[in-house]
């Protein structure tokens, strides 16, 4: 009988019910879209931020020992110990391999130009990742240097190079000129394509493709460091505790630390995977990323929360008027012997059904809107989340059910006699 009452009630008096479903649908669509967006925001922002440089640097272990003089960290001595390009394949075996956005190989050597010692940097991507094999500058190999400011053009060919802004001043080089390098009796000419400002060590160097530098220096397959761009979680208290004193972590804390992609734990895993290497976190990059991410996520959480609240309020509004409209029906049910819980059950089921329907519709439209938002803000695909297909109807059901509790309890407190016999 209850089912029959429900079916009849839902089938007749459609406009009120449609309004309720519509409200839940729109509200839940927004909530689901924001959930989709916020789940994606970390990944997408992280990718955007990777243009500001890699957050982990891998070096030969001896090279990583910082040499500090009066507070300045001196560059490790160039050209002594190297890693092998091939060792980078180990990154593919890493537990965090899916968090790795890019690997940028670098080889530093010292050359002579016009009788002066000038550092020469070769940059490139691992062979495996460049579709075109070991050709000079691939888009892959430059991706990690989005934060470099180049006057002129990026090099395209193996005989072209960039010149750091300080080196260009010292050597009097401008784009289009040729520069002659000497190393151990060999010479080679490169054409300057652009002047680069990096704000770092590269400002005093010449920059060419990795294969060019390896050839010229007679160091095939060798690199002096690799920058690894990774998707990481902003550091929290636990990560900080590890950073200050790794031995202070309890075994449980250590377990949690190593299973979370903090910059520190990913670096530790990389160092372990690549023999003879030392991986360290580039704090300048990782801390900026962390700060931006935390703010973005905070913003998304606030937006999502507000949307959910507004959705609940409007559902309460619609259901309240729908329930109050039926005061005399409730009074009648009580007069013919319905208990308060019978009335509550009837209205709960009805609202739940409406909420379920609205939520189910939102499970379809929410991800579409979420995809649209992700596309508009970041471009590209949003990760689809299967759970939302269940979560959204469930959430709609709960919202609608909670929203009907208040008006129903109000109506149950009414004077039945007065409503029925009121004249």
């Amino acid at each position, binding site marked *: 009988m209850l089912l029959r009452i429900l079916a009849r009630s839902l*089938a007749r008096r459609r406009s009120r019910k449609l309004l309720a479903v519509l409200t839940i649908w729109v509200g839940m669509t927004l909530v689901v879209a924001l959930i989709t967006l916020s789940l994606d925001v970390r990944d997408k922002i992280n990718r955007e931020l990777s243009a500001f440089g890699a957050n982990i640097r891998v070096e030969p272990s001896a090279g990583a020992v910082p040499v500090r003089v009066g507070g300045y960290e001196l560059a490790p001595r160039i050209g002594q110990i190297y890693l092998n390009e091939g060792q980078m394949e180990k990154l593919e075996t890493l537990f965090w391999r899916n968090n790795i956005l890019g690997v940028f190989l670098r080889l530093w050597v010292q050359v002579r130009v016009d009788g002066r010692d000038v550092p020469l940097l070769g940059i490139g991507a691992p062979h495996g990742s460049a579709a075109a094999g070991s050709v000079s500058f691939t888009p892959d190999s430059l991706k990690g240097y989005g934060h470099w400011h180049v006057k002129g053009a990026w090099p395209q060919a193996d005989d072209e190079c960039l010149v750091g802004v300080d080196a260009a001043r010292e050597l009097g080089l401008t784009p289009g000129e040729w520069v002659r390098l000497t190393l151990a009796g060999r010479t080679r000419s490169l054409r300057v394509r652009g002047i680069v400002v990096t704000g770092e060590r590269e400002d005093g160097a010449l920059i060419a493709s990795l294969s060019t530098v390896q050839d010229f220096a007679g160091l095939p397959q060798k690199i002096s460091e690799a920058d690894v761009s990774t998707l990481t979680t902003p550091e929290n208290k636990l990560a900080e505790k590890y950073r200050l004193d790794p031995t202070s972590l309890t075994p449980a804390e250590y377990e949690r630390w190593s299973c979370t992609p903090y910059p520190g734990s990913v670096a530790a895993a990389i160092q372990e995977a690549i023999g003879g290497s030392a991986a360290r976190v580039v704090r300048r990059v990782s801390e900026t990323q962390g700060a931006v991410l935390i703010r973005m996520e905070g913003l998304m959480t606030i937006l999502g929360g507000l949307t959910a609240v507004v959705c609940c309020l409007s559902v309460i509004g619609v259901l309240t008027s729908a329930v109050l409209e039926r005061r005399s*029906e409730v009074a009648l*049910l009580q*007069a*013919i*012997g319905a208990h308060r819980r019978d009335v509550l059950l009837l209205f709960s089921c009805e609202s739940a059904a409406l909420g379920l329907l609205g939520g189910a519709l939102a499970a379809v439209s929410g991800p579409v809107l979420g995809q649209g938002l992700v596309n508009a803000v970041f471009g590209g695909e949003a990760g689809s989340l299967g759970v939302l297909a269940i979560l959204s109807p469930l959430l709609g059901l709960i919202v609608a059910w909670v929203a009907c509790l208040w008006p129903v309890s109000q109506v149950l407190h009414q004077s039945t006699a007065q409503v029925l*016999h009121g004249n």
Partner: protein
Amino acid sequence: MGQAAIRLENVSRVYPGGIRALDGVSLHIEQGEWVAVMGPSGSGKTTLLNLLDGLDKPTAGRVLVLGTDLGRLDPDEAATFRREKIGLIFQGFHFVPYLTALENVMLAQYYHSIVDKKQACAILERLGMADRTHHLPSQLSGGEQQRVCIARALVNEPQVVLADEPTGNLDERNEAEVMNIFRDLHLEGKTILMVTHNHDIGRRSGSQVLLNHGRIVRQRFTA
């Protein structure tokens, strides 16, 4: 002498605002009696009925129906009492608008015990509504609605039937038919309390109670 069907002991009902709708009313109705409650508008007839069906509570005095003190029941206990013992016929009918005539009758069965469609159909048939069972209340005439309302009140075989102006909205032909139904119920031995301000109707009952300003001014036996 059996247990009284209805007993009011010095009952008063004062509404907020100080209106004394009932003022020290005492009344004794035996089982199987058919009583008409009469009186001018505003004399407290509906208030009296609401006290007897447990939808309202007295401010003073005791209301006993079939031995149960209704003033002591909470809303759910009162609902249980109503569905077990009382058939209610409303002045304004009152139906669940989206249920058919038959479903409205079955609803009373549902809250009483179990739904028995055959029995629900039978009672509608007895009241001459066999061909209207699948109509919505809004599709029925006043007389037809009143009969569905009576069918709903009777479907659970109540011992006491309370009716508020059951013929108030009906034309003469329907009025006569409804009165015949009440006569049959009386012959079946049900206790009936019927509010009316039509003296002709009142005279057909076994006894009459006359209310004025919340007090019983006269009690008269017809037969």
